[in-house]
């Protein structure tokens, strides 16, 4: 079943990709193919493959259960949050939070996670900022 849904999704993607390619118009002709031929060929290629997948699906995928799925979503959200927090609160604080959080998510106890967060954050800061000479944000909150 998963294969069929994948096939249908990819087919829609191929159609959208191919249709969008029709808008690549040029006034001057540089070469016989122009900018739209290759994307349209790719769209056709993907369309054929996805139809094959729809017609002859193989085994289904085992998707993770709800708890795991939730954890994964939380992880993605946390990574997005990290990217957003990096500038305001600075590298060290943001990294302590994200590493600690990930560690808890991956089965560490609280104190283990905290320790991992602090140590790795400081180590990475020293490595990147001090040794490799790569400026990392110190954070607006701390006057960076």
């Amino acid at each position, binding site marked *: 079943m*998963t294969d069929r849904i*994948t096939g249908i999704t*990819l087919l829609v993607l191929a159609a959208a*990709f191919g249709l*969008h*390619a029709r808008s*690549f*118009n*040029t006034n001057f002709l*540089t*070469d*016989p*193919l*122009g*900018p739209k031929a*290759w*994307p349209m060929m*790719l*769209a056709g*290629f*993907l369309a054929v*493959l*996805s139809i094959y*997948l729809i017609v002859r699906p*193989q085994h289904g*995928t085992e*998707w*993770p259960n709800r708890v*795991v799925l939730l*954890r*994964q979503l939380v*992880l*993605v959200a946390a*990574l*997005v949050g990290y*990217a*957003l927090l*990096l*500038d305001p609160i600075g590298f060290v604080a943001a*990294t302590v939070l*994200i*590493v600690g959080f*990930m*560690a*808890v*998510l*991956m*089965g*560490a106890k609280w104190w*283990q*996670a905290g320790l*991992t*967060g602090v140590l*790795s954050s400081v180590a*990475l800061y020293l490595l*990147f900022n001090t040794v*490799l*000479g*790569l400026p*990392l944000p110190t954070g607006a909150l701390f006057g960076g």
Partner: protein
Amino acid sequence: METLHLLGQGFGVAFQPLNVGLALLGAFAGTIVGALPGLGPANGVAILIPVSFTLGLRPESALILLASVYYGAMYGGRISSILLNIPGDEPAVMTTLDGYPMAKQGRGGSALAISAVASFVGATLATVGLMLFAPVLAKLAIRFGPAEYFALYVMAFSTLSSLTGKNPVKTLIGAALGLMLATVGLDSATNIPRYTFGQMKFFEGIDFIVAIVGLFAISEALVFLETLHAGQFVRYQVGRVSARVRDIARSLMTMVRGSIVGFISGVLPGAGASLGSFVAYTLEKRLVDRHNTFGTGDPRGVAAPEAGNNAAAGGALVPMLTLGVPGSGTTAVLLAMLMSLNITPGPLLFTQHPEVVWGLIASLYFGNVVLLVLNLPLVGIFVRLLSVPGWILMPVVTMVGFLGVYSISHSVFDIFLMIGFGVGGYLLRKLDIPLVPVILGLLLGDDMEVNLRRALNLGNGDWLTLWHSPLSIILWVLAGLGLVLPLLFLRRPQRVADDEPDDGPEGTTE
């Protein structure tokens, strides 16, 4: 003689203090990456690419660092295979067959020693092969025109689809997706923006590094949440790491044969080390296994696949350097790095940047000696690493990848793009669509289109021009054979470790 002269110059490059340091560092880091369960060479190299950028290394130094990581990871992959029965990546699967039984019988130290010697033999012979064959292939490749290059790219994808992965259709889907991603950005001939959705950030196309780190490192963290194997990271004691000379002598021919077979599989575009170790093992089983001892802890069953996969790693560098077509996932990542440094691998690399090619070859010889030392007397360090819990490992590895990308661009947009690729990569892996062809498509897409358009331009729009020269016909025939033959004759093994937790992502095939 010419070869020796060039090699001499190469050693001049390799023995610059910085490059020696990088080779040592790379070999050490690579062995760690390889030894850690679930982290393959492609992952390791991908994560370290941004770091090599921030160091501001020259191309030859960056390549030396990352190729050492690559070779090191091939050595290290055997450690968790033998001791824990958990292959770090797909090529190491074959090593579990005899390595783990040996460990259970208390001969783990002996298995580690024999496999280290086998890795050394395989990698060294492959470096010799690289040195001898790459220049020849480069000379041939100078005659390639746009039509031949286009045919070559088609061939790369067709052999990739038949030799890796379980489902050729899904491999081709991965390739199509990668090629489609490559069209994002300004069209090179007309400067028309394609699929940029008005985002200025997309005008220059999708950054390879952002895509690769996302696809490999971020998706790995998501997969890890699923597999959280409790009790996997156990403390493990090995006795003395040494093997009886008799055991090593007895498997010497096995190592040589495994190296040759492995090297050839490595040179085939897309085949890579998994095929190398598989063919080496089955060939040896057929040739020397008279008492059916293979699979029960026969030292030769450890030597064959290790020689095979290390030789394949060297072989995979041949098409990457001479044609710009990577032979494996990891060489695809290396190619991405070279392209980002404005070095285009291909026949001209050998004349324009001999210091890159020969410096690399020389430092591979040197790196191999270093790796042998690291993996024989010092192997205990890496064994101890097996007990590092995943909840320390994964967050730190993810952060190194994160930081690397951030350090290149300082742009939050790129980080979001990377997270997006991570989620995409996770979905693809769940759907059994391998990641290597996606990366290959993303890397080669531009060149593929440019060469197609150039060929048709030269041929005034006549499609027959693609078949014009004998050379291009040969490549098309090979592409066709690559697609058809394996389906008929070469049954890929069902993953030997099917009952194992699927640690190695498809994408990190070697």
